[in-house]
């Protein structure tokens, strides 16, 4: 069974890029274009990892992270903020809201997958054979 990644991202191009990149790495992708649908999707599908944009229409990414963390079964799920906010304090704010990590946009396609997989639980990676 493929490992599931939930991507919450409003920019269609970015969504496409991440989906393309990760499907190529044999992940199952669940897409959500705003915070509200993202939370619902997370609850229903229980993804292995969540990639979260911060600037979202309506509910912003920080709030989404907080809400996801309130769901019992998602307490330990890695949430990675993927954002172009690069002002001082942005990273700290994301971590405070419950994100496990932070990848700055623009992403580097050569390193993005390994950056992300660093947040996956060890046994999951073992199963995928990505860990020696």
């Amino acid at each position, binding site marked *: 069974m493929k490992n599931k990644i939930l991507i919450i991202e409003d920019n269609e*191009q970015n969504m496409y*890029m991440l989906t*393309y990149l990760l499907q190529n790495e044999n992940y199952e992708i669940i897409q959500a274009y705003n915070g509200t649908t993202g939370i619902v999707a997370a609850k229903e599908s229980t993804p292995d990892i969540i990639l979260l944009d911060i600037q979202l229409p309506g509910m912003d990414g920080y709030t989404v992270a907080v809400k996801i963390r309130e769901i019992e079964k998602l307490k330990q799920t890695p949430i990675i903020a993927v954002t*172009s906010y*690069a002002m001082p304090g942005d990273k700290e704010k994301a971590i405070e809201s419950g994100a496990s990590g932070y990848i700055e*946009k*623009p992403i*580097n396609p*050569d390193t993005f997958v390994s950056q992300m997989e660093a947040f996956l639980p060890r046994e999951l990676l073992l199963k995928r054979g990505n860990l020696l």
Partner: protein
Amino acid sequence: MKFQKSFILIFFAVSILFALGLYTVYTVVKEKIIQDMNFSQTVLARQAATGIKDYVSNVTGTLNYLSLFPEIIESNSFGKKIMSNYQMINSDEIKSVTRMNAKGKIIFTFPYIESIGTDISYQDHVRLSMKTHKIVVSDVFNTVQGFRTVAVHAPVFKNGHYDGTLAFLLSFDKIAQKYIENIRVKESGYGWVVSENGIEISSPFLGHIGKNVYETYKDFPEIISLINETHKGEEGVTAYHYHSGRDTSGENVIMHAVYKRVSFNNTFWSIVIATPEDEITATLSGFRTNLLFVIIALLLLFMIFMYLIVRFQVIVEEQRKRESVLTDLRESESRYRYLFEQNPVPMLIYELDGLSILAVNDAFVAHYGYSNEEALTMLLTDLYPKHEREKISDFTKTLKGHAYAGEWHHLKKDGTQIIIEAHSHRFSYECRASRVAVINDLTERKRIEESLKENFLKFKTLFEINPDAIFITDANTLEIYDCNQVACVMNGYSHEELIGRSINILHLEQTTKIVDDAEGRHQFIEYLQHHNSVTQESIHRRKDGTLFPIETSMCLLTLDGRQFVMGIDRDITERKRAEDELKKYHEHLEEMVYDRTAELKIAKERAESADRLKSAFLATMSHELRTPLNSIIGFTGILMKGIAGPLNDEQQKQLGMAKGSAHHLLDLINDVLDISKIEAGQLVVSFNTFDYGKTLKNIVVTVQPLAEKKEIKIQLGISNDVIEINSDERRIGQVLLNLINNAIKFTDHGTVKIDCQVIDGNVITKVIDTGIGIKNEDMSKLFKPFSQIDTGLTRNHDGTGLGLSISQKLIEKLNGTITVESEAGIGSIFTVTVPL
């Protein structure tokens, strides 16, 4: 003494208990002994009874036997011969043999043959025999021949008819001797015998024998009752009072008696054996007496023992008390000795007679300089200067009890004269009439008093000549205690008018007046206590009513335990006037400053809001620019990775160019962001300890590929003392990377040399290149933003032109500097200096 009383009581109680116990035991034992004695007496009585009975039976048997002889029945000569022979053979016991016919007439008798023919039918027992025709035993009676006898008659039958009797007269003395008189119990216990008729058959009292006991013992009802008892039973035990057998004239004693009946055909006898009680219990009494003696002795010993124990305890207790008193005494003595010897005040003891010094204490020795031995050879008068010696000698004679000797002069060993006062007390020292004196050296005190007096004068002068008014006011009543002349003149009062009045009379009503109630004064004092000195301005009113401003400095002072406020008043009329002038100017100035400040404030707010706008704009711009860049860089990367399919060389090259441009744009955005952060003061540096050399090496490793591409050699030299520094590793790295990158970028041939060492607590890093260098006129523009020197359409070199500007700002933020030396066409040296 209480103890003795209770001791005697206890002794008596013990004695009585002992006596009671002893008496009980004695009674029980005595009873037992009497019981045993009675048993023995009964045995004796039974033996005697059996003996008598047997004897009489023998006699009766013989009589019966003889009475069957025809010769005796006929009483012929042969018969007479048998009878007389038998009597002769047994004459000891048988006093006579008699043959009596049926009518009671003696037919034959032997040896008193003169009685033959005598009629003896008048005798009771004979009549009984004649009546019953059976064997009859008589009572004891006296014969005509004058001996005591008992007659036994056996009937004689001739041809079946009664024909009188054959009788023996038995010697009763013999019987009594054999069976009764030999009975001896203890010393004087004896036996006696009474017949059925009350005739005493045998008795140790010879006078009683043959007499009627009812007559003999008519005064002894106990004996009469005993006799009556013998009629009722075979044997029994009883007791009676009678004189003992050993002493007939003496007092009556208790006789313990037993009786036993001896029965015959016609009658009976009663054997009584009686023993005096005192003899029965003689052993016991002896034992009792001895026991009593022993017990009394034991009691006495016990009492003495108890007494000694108690006495011993009393002695021990007294000894203990005495020792405790002695200890107290010793302690008291040592206490007083200590009081004397260790007293810090000089003390001495002198003998009244002769005034020789007997003892001095350590303080005396220390104070006067005389050794203890020296002092003991001196007289009291030796301590005084010559002119006082006679006076003190006379003075000591008047002293009684406790006395204050007043002030005198004493001489120390070194000749110094001191002023002293002495107290002395009468005292017995080693049985000598003495006085103990306590000496107070007043010299120092006198000196202080003198100096105080002097100080007082100084103070008084200062007080009076002071140009300011000085008031000394009681802190609690606010009454003026003292003031100087200036104070009087300033306020228009005389000294007398002011003293004793409230300080408030000087103050203008209700303004600067000190609140004249307990709480107000208390608050005032408290305030002064917390401030060393308080200065305030107030308005005073002169006696004539005119007002004038003063400045008062106040402080709290304590004299003789009273709290005072000392106030120094200065007339400030002139100063006030000057101040008022100044104030006018001042107020105008303030107005101007206020206006200007308001203007500046608005300008500042405007500027700040512009800054905020700029920051927000930059943040938004950064984000907005990054979003499309994300697409460009991301997709270029994905395409170049060949995920979507392989690319030909030309496509790869062109995408590479796009990627390069995109990255340049990203760098530009990042640099612009950095600059804006720095300018908006938002740049935050964080200090940490890190290895500077290691950071530098890592940077060199990352730029190595770029250098290799341009065939430029990098020389790195780090001195050994470059170790850990405390700074922001990321920012330092950013600056060094920028400088080294620049050096490689602007160098086409040759080397880039990096030299790092520690000088004077700073890490100094030089980046030396052999590049294009910088013209003198361009030096000033070098650190300005967007100022890559080689501006123009033909830009040979990448970069945003912001690097040096950012680097300089960062290094300044880290308390360091960047400097540059350069010569166009030769090369440049950039020097970074940061503190360790």
